[in-house]
């Protein structure tokens, strides 16, 4: 009587998707900002979570918060590796690093320079690059600062496409990439049959070895 019960129980549970429930996150450049996202590997995003930013030595650089879709932005001020850390409670911690090179590239980007010129990014004194008229803010986040920079920087370059178009294209590409990036992250977390069978194989081998050793010891003794 209990055997069919156990069987139905097992069968009823088998079709459940094998979701790992891990915290995943990533950060990437978004104009003058670092944009990142944090979520669980089953697709839920971490809404309104505190994200703390550290340098590699563990000094706290600042903090930010995720929005309802688990996305946060952070404006870097120093070209060091940024370690993002979010504690989602109950032992769920996301930690990921944006390397110093990437942060330097962000700080060196036209958008960051323009933002620095308008004083929106203090602390980047050596990176202001004041004499570059062809640069244009790609930054869309602080609308006030960006429009200020818009007026300040003359439009020189960009044959064919206006810089507003470029900024818009960059934004569209980023938006289009986001689900893809999420899918890749989810794919990486997927547990396929191969690793499951591989793990079982390891267990069988390990305990087989243990059995062999124990058996030999007993035969000797």
């Amino acid at each position: 009587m209990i055997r069919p019960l156990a069987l139905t129980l097992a069968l009823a549970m088998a079709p459940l998707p094998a979701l790992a429930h891990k915290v995943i996150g990533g950060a990437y450049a978004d104009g003058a900002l670092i944009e990142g996202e944090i979520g669980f590997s089953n697709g839920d995003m971490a809404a309104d979570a505190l994200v703390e930013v550290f340098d590699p030595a563990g000094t706290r650089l600042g903090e930010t918060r995720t929005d309802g879709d688990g996305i946060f932005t952070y404006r870097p001020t120093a070209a060091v590796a940024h370690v993002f850390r979010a504690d989602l409670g109950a032992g769920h911690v996301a930690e990921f690093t944006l390397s110093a090179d990437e942060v330097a590239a962000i700080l060196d980007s036209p958008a960051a320079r323009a933002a620095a010129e308008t004083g929106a990014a203090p602390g980047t004194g050596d990176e202001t690059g004041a004499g570059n008229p062809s640069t244009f803010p790609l930054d869309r986040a602080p609308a006030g600062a960006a429009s200020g920079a818009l007026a300040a920087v003359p439009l020189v370059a960009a044959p064919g496409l206006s810089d507003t178009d470029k900024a818009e294209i960059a934004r569209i590409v980023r938006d289009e990439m986001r689900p893809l990036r999420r899918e890749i992250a989810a794919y990486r977390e997927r547990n396929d049959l191969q690793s499951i069978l591989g793990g079982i194989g390891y267990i069988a081998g390990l305990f087989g070895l243990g059995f062999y050793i124990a058996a030999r010891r007993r035969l000797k003794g």
Partner: protein
Amino acid sequence: MHIVDGALAAPVVIGGAVLAVGGVARGLRDLTLEKIPAAGMLSASFFVASLIHVPIGPSSVHLILNGLAGLVLGWAAFPALFVGLLLQAVFFGFGGLTVLGVNTLNIALPAVIVHYLCRRGLARGTPRIAALWAGMGGALAIALTALGVGLALALSGEAFLPAARLVFLAHIPVMAVEGLLTAAAVYLAAQVKPDLFATVQGPQR
């Protein structure tokens, strides 16, 4: 259930590792020739069980089956569950290598506790009574594991009560499912192979 890398303070991680090493050493002494096949089976079931997710609300929890492992293996549950956890960390990225000790302790210690609490009930009596004890043992093991996770988080700075309550509440469905599953497994074992528990407990080396 698995605490991930970086969630715990260093002293907690080190303390957990030391205690887990002790537990595994104690368990290996207990791992007799008779127990090894059973330990391997339970290790494999534990390894796979974590992939069966019970969705609750926004999150999901998975089966652990440490109660069953403890009931059958006693101290030998330590090495068995340690191997399962190690492979889960390597293959699936559940938990992590640095917190392996804490996770082992959180999952295997309840198994041992349940073993000592329930072995009398399992050894004597009808399969029905054995199943009853096993069901309680299975549920209790999860409760203790949730408590352990809450404690580990609390020692690392999170306020104990909210953290523990969250973990505990999330695992109430698992406790129910796991209790039923353990009871069913033990009932089956008691019917088909009543000497399983006797053999496995059997002659010490």
